[in-house]
């Protein structure tokens, strides 16, 4: 008996090792292409001519640079709010449709994403230049950003909404809630996790975007990505560029933790209220 146990265990650990082997290429990939550049950025951000220093960070955190960061965050916030206002109703309508119709319609949101976003942004540039007066304004930048990031808002909300148990809505109606109350008190809180992951998926990449603002904004606004590019390439100051990257990284990490916390809180609350 004992012998077979040992044997069993052995074969199980054997399998375990073999399985983890499959993760090895990815770990190597991460080490080479994600971890080592990160370490280099850390190194350049906190050294100057060989010696350790905080000088780069202090210099990078000057008011002019932070104003650029604030501008980038402002654009990202506008984009996120607009995407939420447009994306939630679309996701809601999709979730109320027949599965097949919804699947067909969501193809229309997904197929354009198969094309490179730069190409689509160039197309917008031509369209806006030919038919409107808003090319090279902030409105054009916002339009381009909302257009590019909208699917990332719709899809997570749609996924939460279709998973939502319809009996809650029926129960709310049975207990006398009108449709507006049902939506505000039942559907909206239950879909909060989808909203939060949609907000994360739109806010983070739109903080760091720069191509859209350059193409549609006519280079009149400098976003944080442009600033980092300028430090590295035009100024050839890898220390300053790395310090700026670290500041952005800290900002992104902070906002992600904040949103993760909000997500946990809403799912706790939602669960509590439901029971």
């Amino acid at each position: 008996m004992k012998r077979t146990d040992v044997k069993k265990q052995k074969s199980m650990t054997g399998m375990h090792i073999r399985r983890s082997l499959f993760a090895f290429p990815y770990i190597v990939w991460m080490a080479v292409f994600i971890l080592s550049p990160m370490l280099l950025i850390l190194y350049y951000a906190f050294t100057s001519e060989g010696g350790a220093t905080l000088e780069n960070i202090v210099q990078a955190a000057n008011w002019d640079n932070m104003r650029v960061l604030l501008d980038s965050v402002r654009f990202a916030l506008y984009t996120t709010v607009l995407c939420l206002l447009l994306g939630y109703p679309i996701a809601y309508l999709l979730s109320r449709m027949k599965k097949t119709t919804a699947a067909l319609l969501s193809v229309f949101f997904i197929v354009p994403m198969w094309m490179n976003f730069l190409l689509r942004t160039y197309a917008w540039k031509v369209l806006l230049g030919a038919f409107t007066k808003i090319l090279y304004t902030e409105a054009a930048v916002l339009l381009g950003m909302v257009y590019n990031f909208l699917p990332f808002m719709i899809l997570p909300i749609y996924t939460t909404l279709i998973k939502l148990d319809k009996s809650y809505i029926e129960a709310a109606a049975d207990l006398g809630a009108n449709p507006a109350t049902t939506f505000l008190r039942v559907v909206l809180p239950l879909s909060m996790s989808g909203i939060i992951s949609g907000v994360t998926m739109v806010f983070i990449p739109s903080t760091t975007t720069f191509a859209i603002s350059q193409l549609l904004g006519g280079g009149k606004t400098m976003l944080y990505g442009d600033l980092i590019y300028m430090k590295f390439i035009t100024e050839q100051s890898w220390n300053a560029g790395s310090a700026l990257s670290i500041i952005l990284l800290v900002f992104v990490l902070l906002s992600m933790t904040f949103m993760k916390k909000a997500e946990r809180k809403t799912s706790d609350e939602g669960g509590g209220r439901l029971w």
Partner: protein
Amino acid sequence: MKTSQKIVCLALALLLSLSCFACGGKSAKVTLNVLNWGDYIDPTLLRQFEDETGIAIKYTTMTSNEEMLVKLASADNIYDVCFPSDYIIEKLIADDLLYPINQDNIPNLKNIDPRFLDLSFDPGNTYSVPYMWGTVGILYNKTMVSDPVDSWNILWDAKYTGEILMYDSMRDTIGITLKKLGYDINTRNEADIQAAQDALIAQKPLVRAYLTDDIKMELINGSAAMGVVYSGDAVYCIGENPDLAYVVPKEGSNVWFDNIIIPKTSTHTAEAEAFINFLCDAKVAAQNSDYIGYSTPNAAGLALMGSDYIDDPTYNPPQEVLDRCQIYHDLGDFVKVFSDAWTKIKAA
């Protein structure tokens, strides 16, 4: 059993791919890695060179001088030939990154106009051979601008609000503003930069956009009345839309030279010199200049191009225009003052 089969398969695949590498390496054909600006050579000339010499060319393009500098200065630089501008060459020489060209291997150097040899950034042309040159000026649409265009000040004229295009390049835009204000284009005086910064921030509400290559399209299709362009692009645009005209303002401007260099790390210097000599051939230079629209420093080549080009003041500006233009010099650490000003202008 299955695992061993897999291993055999993998080993075979590996062997196959390795043997492919081997056959690539066995051939005696030398490959020159060439790094250039986009749209900056007639591609048929590359084929012609390959056919004539049996040397293969691997061609890569960059969009800015600074990107070229990053590539050339990196420890694992693979390029054998590159076409950077004057002030970058100055920096490359200072950093000891260039190969001293053996002029005996470039007999066609005799074709080059002596005006473009022995310039300040590379005395004696030890490290570089002239390729193209030009000026920075204003390209404007005669049907949309009624005032005479002879000064940079027209770019600050509120009458043309929303119709002015500026070049999205720190060095060029701050440079022409320094000239407008009467300062040295290579100033190391912070007060001058401050004045240029204030002027550009004041101008910003009038500007339609800060663009690079897109300026050409906007001016050709009449979306804007005027813009800052390089003379070579002006030649191209005027060819597409005859309503356009080019001026180098009276306050002076930048005259620039793109020269051909060989990085010190190159292992095919003889082949690279053969390529440079090929590009300095009169017929080749003329064909190339005609294709890209930029001015050739090749006197023998220019003679072949006919009066359309020779008499065109945009393509071949008279000496008095050049006399009021300045060459850029490497700014050294002062580049930080420029880029801080540029950040403030863009964030304003």
